[in-house]
C-alpha cells in the first residue's frame, strides 16, 4: 500500500449577494438577491463557471481518465447548487460527470454556508439536513464527512457532527493549536459533552443507526494549500515559480501520511488566472506524484486507510481565515454582531412559518429569504479589521466599505421584516375570519 497520499478537498460556494436597496425605497423590491448591480449574481456565476467550474471540472475529468488513481473531494454549498440550477445547468452536469467516475466524494455542509453553529443549533442541524437532501436529489450521494462553514471548528462542533452520524470532519491545521502535532496524519477529535438540549437536536437530526464513538479529524496543511491558493503566482515569493517537481519534493521529503490540501475551488482560473499556469500545474501534478509513489485519497478513504495518530483537543473556535484563524472576520466588530443578531432574533417567527399547510408557498419564500440572509459572506463584507489597518487591498468585497455593506444588509433585512410583518398581519386576519365563519356555521 502506498504510504503517502494527497487528500484534495475543494470548496465550491457562491453567495446570493444582496440587491442594492436604499432605505428610502423599502418594500419596493421584487428580488432581494439580484446582486449589487442589476443581475450581478447571474453575471458573476456565469463568469466563474466559464473561468473556473467548467474548465477545472473538465481538466479533472481528463486527469482521472488518464490516472484512475486520482481522487478528490468536494463540498458544494446549497446556495451554489441553487445558483447553478438557476443560471448554468451545465455546471451541475459536469459535476455529475465527475462523480460518475467513482473517484469523487462529496461532503456535507450547512446549506446556506451559514454561521448557524454560533447562533442556533437547531438551524444548524436543519441546514445540514437540507444539504443532505439536496445532494441526494441531485447526485444520489449520502455524505458521511462534514465540513462546517469556513472550517469553523472546536471539540463541540466535532462531537455534534459525530452525534448527527458523521465519520469525519475537516479543520484548519493551525500549528499554534496543535501542540507540536503534525497535521499530516489522521486524528481523533477529543470527545466532549454536548449540552443536553443540543444533544437532543443532534439526536433528532441523526441520519444513521450506527454512530461512532469517536469522530476522525483531517487537518488542513495550510502551508502546502496556500502555496497553491495564494502564493502560486506571487513573483515576490522566493519559491516562484512553483513547479510540480519542487512541490512533489516538499511532500516526498516531509513527515506524514496524508497531505490535506483544502482549497477554494475558485483558486483554479478565478483567483489564479489561467495565464499563471495553474491549470498546467494541476495537470502535471498527478504524474509527478504517482512517479514518487504518492497516491490520492478522498476524505473517507484517508480515514479508513490510515491509523489514528492521536487526539486533537481544540476548545476555542477556530476557522481557516486570516492570520488569526479565529471568527473575527465574521463576528469581529459591532456592526457584524448587530446584523447577525438581527437575523437570528427572527428565528421564533420563522419557526412559526414552518407550520401549517395554508399559504405554504408564501411561507417557504419568506423562510428562504431568512436563510439566504444567514450566508457568512454578508458578514465578511462588514469586516473592518483590515480596512481599519489601511490594508484596504485585503478587503475582498463589491462594497465600497464595510459600512456600506452593513447599511445595504440592514436595508435588505428591514425590507424582509416588512414582508414578514405584512404576511403575519394577513395571516392573523385570515384566522380570525375563518374562526368567525365557523361560529356562524355552528
Amino acid at each position, binding site marked *: 500500500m502506498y504510504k503517502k497520499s494527497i487528500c484534495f478537498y475543494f470548496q465550491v460556494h457562491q453567495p446570493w449577494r444582496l440587491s442594492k436597496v*436604499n*432605505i*428610502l425605497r423599502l418594500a419596493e423590491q421584487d428580488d432581494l438577491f439580484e446582486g449589487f448591480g442589476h443581475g450581478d449574481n447571474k453575471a458573476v456565476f456565469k463568469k466563474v463557471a466559464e473561468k473556473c467550474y467548467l474548465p477545472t471540472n473538465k481538466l479533472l475529468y481528463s486527469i482521472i481518465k488518464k490516472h484512475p488513481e486520482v481522487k478528490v473531494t468536494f463540498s458544494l454549498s446549497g446556495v451554489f447548487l441553487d445558483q447553478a440550477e438557476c443560471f448554468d445547468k451545465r455546471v451541475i452536469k459536469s459535476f455529475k460527470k465527475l462523480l460518475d467516475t467513482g473517484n469523487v466524494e462529496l461532503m456535507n455542509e450547512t446549506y446556506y454556508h451559514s454561521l448557524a453553529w454560533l447562533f442556533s443549533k437547531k438551524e444548524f442541524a436543519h441546514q445540514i439536513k437540507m444539504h443532505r437532501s439536496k445532494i441526494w436529489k441531485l447526485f444520489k450521494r449520502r455524505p458521511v464527512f462534514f465540513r462546517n462553514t469556513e472550517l469553523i471548528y472546536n471539540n463541540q462542533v466535532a462531537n455534534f457532527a459525530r452525534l448527527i452520524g458523521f465519520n469525519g470532519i475537516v479543520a484548519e491545521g493551525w500549528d499554534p493549536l496543535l501542540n507540536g502535532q503534525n497535521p499530516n496524519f489522521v486524528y481523533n477529535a477529543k470527545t466532549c459533552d454536548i449540552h443536553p438540549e443540543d444533544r437532543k437536536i443532534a439526536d433528532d437530526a441523526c441520519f444513521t443507526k450506527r454512530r461512532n464513538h469517536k469522530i476522525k479529524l483531517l487537518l488542513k496543511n495550510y502551508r502546502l494549500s496556500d502555496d497553491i491558493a495564494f502564493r502560486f503566482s506571487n513573483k515576490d515569493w522566493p519559491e516562484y515559480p512553483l513547479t510540480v517537481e519542487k512541490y512533489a519534493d516538499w511532500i516526498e521529503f516531509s513527515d506524514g501520511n496524508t497531505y490535506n490540501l483544502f482549497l477554494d475551488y475558485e483558486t483554479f482560473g478565478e483567483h489564479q488566472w489561467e495565464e499563471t499556469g495553474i491549470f498546467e500545474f494541476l495537470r502535471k501534478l498527478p504524474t509527478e506524484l504517482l512517479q514518487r509513489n504518492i497516491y490520492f485519497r478522498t476524505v473517507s478513504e484517508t480515514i479508513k486507510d490510515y491509523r489514528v495518530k492521536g487526539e486533537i483537543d481544540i476548545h476555542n473556535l477556530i476557522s481557516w481565515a486570516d492570520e488569526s484563524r479565529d471568527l473575527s472576520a465574521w463576528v469581529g*466588530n*459591532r*456592526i457584524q*454582531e*448587530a446584523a447577525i443578531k438581527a437575523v437570528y432574533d427572527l428565528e421564533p417567527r420563522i419557526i412559526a412559518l414552518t407550520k401549517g399547510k395554508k399559504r405554504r408557498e408564501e411561507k417557504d419564500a419568506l423562510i428562504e429569504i431568512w436563510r439566504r440572509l444567514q450566508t457568512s459572506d454578508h458578514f465578511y463584507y462588514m469586516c*473592518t479589521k483590515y*480596512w*481599519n489597518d*489601511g490594508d*484596504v487591498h485585503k478587503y475582498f468585497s463589491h462594497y*465600497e*466599505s464595510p*459600512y*456600506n455593506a*452593513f*447599511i445595504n444588509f*440592514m*436595508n435588505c433585512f428591514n425590507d424582509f421584516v416588512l414582508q414578514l410583518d405584512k404576511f403575519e398581519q394577513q395571516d392573523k386576519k385570515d384566522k380570525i375570519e375563518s374562526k368567525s365563519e365557523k361560529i356562524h356555521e355552528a
Partner: protein
Amino acid sequence: MNKGKVLMLGWEYAPFYSGGLGIVTRSIVNSLKKQGMDIILVLPKVPFELNEDQLEIINASKVKIESPESIIYSDIEINSLLTAYSTSYSYKERINKLIEIGAKEMSDKTANEVYGTNLFNEVERYAQKAAKIAEKYPHQVIHTHDWMTAKAGLAAKKVSNKPMVMHIHATEFERSAGNPNQDVYEIEREGMNGASKIIAVSERTKEKIVSNYGVSEDKVVVVHNAIEKYPQAKRIGKKINKTDKIVLFLGRLTLQKGAEFLLEAAEKVLRHKRRVKFVFIGHGDMLPFLIKRSIDLGIEKKVMFTGFMDHEDVDKAYQMADVYVMPSVDEPFGITTLEAIKNGTPVIISKQSGVSEVIVNALKVDFWDIDELANQILSVIRYNPLSKCIAQNAEEELKRLDWDKQCKKIMNVYEQVNSK
C-alpha cells in the same frame, strides 16, 4: 539639510482665522519648529501677541513702505480673510456694501474696480512689504500659501534670489465651483510658474494644477493635511434633547460647499424620521437661497442656520452632532472632516474631496447623489453600532495622520529646491 530659515508668507493664522487655511498654516509652523526649523512668518495683520522660540512673526501692516499709492484705500477696512475665499457672487454684494459706505470717494469708479482695487491692492501691498522683509531677514526658502501670497512670494524671491515653494490649499477653480475669476487665475498661474515646487493638499488638487495651469506633473508634490495632536477636546456629552438627532454642516454657505444638497437630502430623511435637526454653521452668499429653499421644502422648522461660530463652540457643535456631513461639490481637502472625527463624530463626506483620499473610516457619497446621502444619514442615526464603529475606527485612523510625518515631506521639498 542645513536647517535654515523659512520665510513663510501666510494669510491666516489660528486662532484668528475664518477657514481651514489658518489652522493648517499654524499646524505646519508648529511641526516645522519641532523638526528644528526656524521660521519667519509674515501675516497681513496680527491681531494678537505671540512670542515663541524659533518663530518670528512679522505683522506686514506695521512694515512701512514708501509708495503713497498703496495706502490710498488703506482706511477702508476690509476683511481680507473672508473675501479671499468668497465667490464671485459675494464679490458683488460686498461691492454694493462698499459703495454704500464709501460712495463719495468712489463715485467715479465702477464697483468692480473699487472692490478689485481693494482686495487686489491689499495683495499687492502685501507683496511690496514681503520684498522689504525678504531683504531684511535672511532665509533659505520661501513658502507661500495660495494666490493671496503668491505675488509676495515672487517679490521676495526677486530680492533674495531664494527658491519659492507654493502651497496650494485650493485653486480658483475649486473656490468658484468652476467659474474662476480671471485675475485670481492669472496670479495663481504666475505664482506656479515662478515657484520651484508646488505642494498640493490632495491628488485631486494636483490634477487641477496640472490640467488647468499647464504645470508639469513632477513639479507638484502632494502633502495631505493632517491634524495636530493637541489634547483631546473636552467632551460635553450634551444633546439638544433626548430624542432629536442632529445632522451637522459646517462651512461657508457657498456653491463649493454643497449645502443645498444636504438640504435636499434633509427633506427625504425627514419623511422617514421626524425627530432630526439639521444644523448649518457658517455664513456665505447662499444663505438667503438656503432659507428660502428650506421653506419651499417645508422643513424650515427642522433646519437651523447659526452663522459663524468660534473655535470652542465649533468643538461643542461637533460633539453634539450625531453625524457630520461634508457635501462639497469640489473640496481640495476638507479639514473640518478631521475636526469632526477628533470630536468623536462619524462623518459622511463627498467623494469629490481631498480628505476622502486619506480617510477610509467614513461614509462617502457623490455630492449630487441625494438619495444615497439620505440613505447614509438615516443609517448612521438609526444604527448606533454603525455610528460608533465608524467614529471609533476613524479616531484610531486619525492618530496615524500625523503633521510631523507630513512636515518631513515638506522639508524634503525644501531640500529639493535648495539642491537645484
